[in-house]
């Protein structure tokens, strides 16, 4: 018997096992990864939690106490690291939906190794992204003014503003991502119920909704899953397009361009795929999931990374050529400013990390070298953060009138909050990896013949 992933996941011992035994082995692999957290695990959680509390909560509290002046944003650069982080985390969130929904629709089998981790990453990354508009607002306790509701002020939200579109796009994305994540988990939680006792058993049992796998349950489940995948795919394209329109709808040179939507979507998939690698490569090693997540699976994910890297490289070139060819001095001035101005190191760092460093992935041996993939994924994460910073800050610092040109330097508060979000992100992912199945067991079982 073998698994249907091109034989990549079949070991010699599995070849002698019956399908029922292989399925049971898969359950054991996942469940053993969830049992008995080690001291090292709790130390990692504690470290991330400390960074989260001190960095995010501490610095944010300081900003609320002292006022927005403690952040480095000031005219002419009114959008700085906070909006950079917002766009970065929304981008990270996108690959979860890509791997889950789009690859599901294309029936790409290798998705089942990554989709659960990617979906969890999506939900956590959207939570990180959602914090930043609130942090950027200053008086964040008035955040509910963003939502349209009857109020004593007798006014409504402005539905013609891209910022209001963002409210709807990101909220929808969060709710649909959580639904998609949870629906995929239902049968797996029912499996975990079998392996647990006491209070844990009750909790897993309640969240599995009493799943038994009857013909009616599977019939409706399959339809729901396909529908959610079908709805999430256009959603993922729309959300980052809407985020790009926060910029493209403005007349700021460097922002006001029609290529922004596809450019942002490709960049989002690129950065999200890199983050999946950053998370899953150590996870696979620590939780001993080599049998379920094979090198062949990483090879295919690396191809996605390489492909989106080429799209991003094409977008960088296109926007430069468009700016030159347009004859618009302000537009081309911005691109000259990016390449040789105050932020040139950020720009070239972005170009090298996102377009040059992934190129060796054309070689198959490197696509299956996990150390190399991990290092590349870190560079891509850095490069994509730089991309958002370059787009936002260079354009605002060098608008139409030379009198209003000015540079921006992030303050320690902005740095602390940025670091704190990474602490939150990794803390949540570590908790997910210990309390929920990191690989979609039920989907893996489908591959057993």
């Amino acid at each position: 018997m073998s698994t249907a992933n091109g034989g990549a996941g079949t070991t010699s011992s599995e070849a002698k096992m019956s399908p029922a035994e292989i399925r049971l082995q898969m359950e054991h692999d996942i469940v053993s990864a969830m049992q008995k957290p080690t001291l090292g695990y709790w130390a990692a959680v504690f470290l991330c939690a400390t960074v989260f509390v001190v960095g995010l909560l501490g610095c944010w509290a300081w900003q609320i106490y002292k006022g927005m002046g403690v952040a480095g944003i000031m005219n002419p650069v009114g959008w700085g690291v906070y909006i950079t982080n917002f766009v970065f985390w929304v981008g990270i969130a996108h690959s979860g939906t890509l791997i889950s929904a789009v690859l599901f629709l294309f029936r790409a089998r290798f998705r089942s190794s990554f989709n659960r981790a990617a979906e969890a990453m999506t939900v956590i990354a959207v939570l990180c992204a959602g914090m930043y508009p609130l942090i950027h607002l200053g008086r964040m306790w008035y955040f509910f003014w963003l939502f349209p509701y009857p109020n004593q002020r007798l006014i409504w939200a402005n539905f013609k503003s891209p910022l209001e579109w963002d409210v709807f796009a990101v909220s929808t994305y969060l709710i649909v991502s959580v639904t998609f994540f949870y629906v995929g988990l239902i049968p797996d939680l029912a499996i975990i119920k079998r392996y647990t006792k006491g209070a844990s058993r009750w909790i897993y049992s309640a969240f599995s909704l009493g799943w038994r796998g009857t013909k009616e349950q599977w019939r409706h489940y399959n339809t729901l899953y396909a529908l959610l995948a079908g709805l999430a795919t256009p959603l993922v394209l729309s959300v980052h397009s809407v985020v790009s329109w926060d910029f493209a709808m403005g007349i700021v040179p460097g922002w006001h361009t029609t290529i922004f939507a596809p450019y942002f979507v490709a960049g989002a998939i690129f950065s999200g795929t890199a983050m999946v690698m950053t998370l899953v490569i150590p996870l696979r090693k620590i939780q001993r999931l080599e049998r379920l997540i094979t090198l062949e699976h990483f090879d295919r994910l690396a191809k996605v990374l390489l492909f989106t890297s080429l799209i991003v490289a094409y977008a960088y070139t296109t926007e430069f050529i468009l700016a030159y060819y347009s004859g618009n001095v302000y537009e081309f001035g911005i691109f000259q400013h990016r390449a040789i101005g105050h932020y040139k190191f950020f720009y070239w760092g972005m170009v090298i990390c996102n377009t040059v460093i992934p190129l060796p992935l054309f070689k198959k041996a490197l696509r299956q070298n996990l150390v190399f993939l991990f290092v590349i994924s870190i560079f891509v994460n850095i490069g994509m953060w730089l991309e958002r910073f370059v787009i936002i800050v260079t354009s605002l610092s060098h608008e139409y009138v030379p009198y209003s040109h000015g540079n921006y330097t992030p303050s320690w508060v902005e740095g602390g909050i940025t670091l704190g979000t990474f602490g939150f992100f990794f803390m949540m992912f570590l908790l997910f990896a210990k309390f929920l199945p990191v690989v979609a067991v039920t989907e893996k079982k489908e591959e057993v013949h």
Partner: protein
Amino acid sequence: MTESTESSTSTPAERFVFGSEHDFLEKLKTLVKSGVKAKDIEILAPHPVHKAEEILSLKPSGVRVFALVGALIGAATGYLFPAFTVIDWPLISGNRPMVSIPPFTIIAFELMILFGALSAFLGFILMSRIPDVITIISDTEFKNDFEIVVKPGGVV
């Protein structure tokens, strides 16, 4: 394969347990050919088996209708609600018409997806009859084997 008979009812139910999907499907085919109706067959599977649905000639799930209705309500809300708000309190911005279709289309699109997804989830919950409190509180488990249960009255 193991075979057992439940004797809790006056007409006992036949239960067949399989470790292999192939054996399970073969037995299912045999049962259907022998004249057992799909409504009299309950199956329990560790993962979705599309071929079993084909053998039993199950109708497409009604969850699709929930999704469609939800999506249509969402799209309509996405156009009508912003239109109502600008009429209720005229907010002229960017020299655009008050009821401005292109920006409202974005709201309509997002709400179409949101309402469609939530409505499909609701449909799934209702039609699958979950949460199943009895299963939650009992020792009934989601098993690793394939099971066919021919309900009392079904001819084997």
